[in-house]
């Protein structure tokens, strides 16, 4: 596993690394996230900064997908904030009402900011989740592709006169 230290040398790089971790944790099923974390040999001690909680976000759409914004409806979200001994504060927001899922997102967010944890997180958590996501996405995409219509046109020609 190559090191990700260089990628996070800049503020921009670190932000991208955090966004990737957030996306992978949030888009993976809570039980899949829990099981990859459970397989980790050791994890940082965590200190919760506030009770993890469930609330709502208002989902917005755009007219025609790209025009004026409008409010579509709400989505429950769990959130958590915690600190690890190495210093960084991790924040987690995931769709759904699973506080454990949000705490794991916060833990990943803290770990990706800590040099001692970043590579271990990548190897133990993010890489397997990315593989799982890609597989599920490809699976759905292949089912959809199987229902693609192949049009054919009956070319009617008159026989030679």
């Amino acid at each position, binding site marked *: 596993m190559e090191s990700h230290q260089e990628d996070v040398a800049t503020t921009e790089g670190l*932000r991208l690394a955090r966004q990737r971790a957030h996306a992978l944790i949030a888009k993976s099923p809570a039980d899949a996230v829990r099981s990859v974390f459970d397989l980790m040999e050791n994890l940082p001690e965590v200190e919760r900064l506030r009770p993890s909680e469930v609330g709502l976000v208002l989902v*917005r759409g755009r*007219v025609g*997908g790209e025009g004026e914004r*409008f409010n579509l409806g*709400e989505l429950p979200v769990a959130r958590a904030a915690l600190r690890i001994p190495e210093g960084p504060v991790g924040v987690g*927001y995931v769709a759904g009402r699973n506080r454990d899922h949000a705490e794991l997102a916060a833990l990943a967010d803290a770990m990706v900011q800590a040099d001692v944890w970043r590579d271990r997180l990548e190897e133990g958590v993010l890489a397997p989740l990315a593989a799982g996501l890609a597989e599920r996405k490809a699976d*759905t995409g292949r*089912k959809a592709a*199987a229902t693609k219509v192949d049009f054919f046109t009956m070319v009617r020609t008159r026989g030679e006169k």
Partner: protein
Amino acid sequence: MAYVSVKGGERAISNAHQWLDEMRRGDASVPELTVEQIRHQMSLAVDRVMMEGSCYDPELAALAIKQARGDVTEAIFLVRAYRTTLQRFGATEPIKTPEMAVQRRVSAAFKDIPGGQILGPTFDYTHRLLNFDLCDAGPAGVAVKATEPVVEKMPTIASVFAHESLLEQTAAESDDAPEPYDLTREPMAFPAGRDQRLQALARGDEGFLLSLAYASQRGWGSTHPLCGEIRMGDVTVEFTPEELGFPIEIGEIVVTECQMISNFEGSADKPPQFTFGYGLTFGHNERKAMSMAIVDRALRHKEVGENGVHAVQDEEFVLYHSDNVEASGFVQHLKLPHYVDFQAQLQFVRRLCKEWREAREAATPDAGEFAEAAE
């Protein structure tokens, strides 16, 4: 007149609720439905409850359907009530439907739409014959998989014809545009902007919108629509938490989107072109998305200089009556005690009758004697 409080009925109510619980469970010798079963096997009912309940939570919607004995409107009410118990963290970035991972994508207007016609899991083309195999444990359905997945981003019908300006171009929003209207925080106001109308339609009753759309198609507010594009699939939801200050992806949701195309004959300012009606719903619900798109287009009649003489074009009529929680509440509140109203009306009608008889007697004394004899 003062209100008179009437107490009583607590025991009757409590017992009625217990009987309701027994009824909900049904025959105790039949295994009980689980919320998981409803969520996965009644998924289209779940999708409808999520959209009209205005809360994307399949598990809660399934629970609501179970508790409501399958009464979808009642389940929507339960979800709406639950929603009010949670605080709001904020609003998401707008979802990007052009980037949807499509499970289904069809255009009825343009056969050769780039990316192709992807039928997805649809009831269309089924024969609507009851499948008695499902009386027992049904055959396990297995989807066929192609070797390669569909392309990641399907171009939208609007983008395909963008170079010709034959189709209405959706104006991009400026950065200083005001926050979209939020019906959950602000009361209905008229004239309504398209943002307010679309939010109301998205939460609106599927049946009401379907009937309005149907009426519009049949001539009561003609829109002559063609289905430009329907797509259903997963979109990513992005949110910017205050603590972070940058957007993060917080999950994926399934949505259905519909672009309806209608002719516009042009005006002094605009050349003739096709105009769009837009529909967007949580979950897989094409009937709702299509109806919403037709009604959205009908409500835009002023923009294209059409006469607004039909119900579907009247935004006050449509928006005030599309919410089934409000509609159901107002219709069904009539079965709660109205004893005092009735008492007042009774006295009033009695007095009117008495005056009517007296007037008749005064005019024709014989009729009065006849009435008394009959008594």
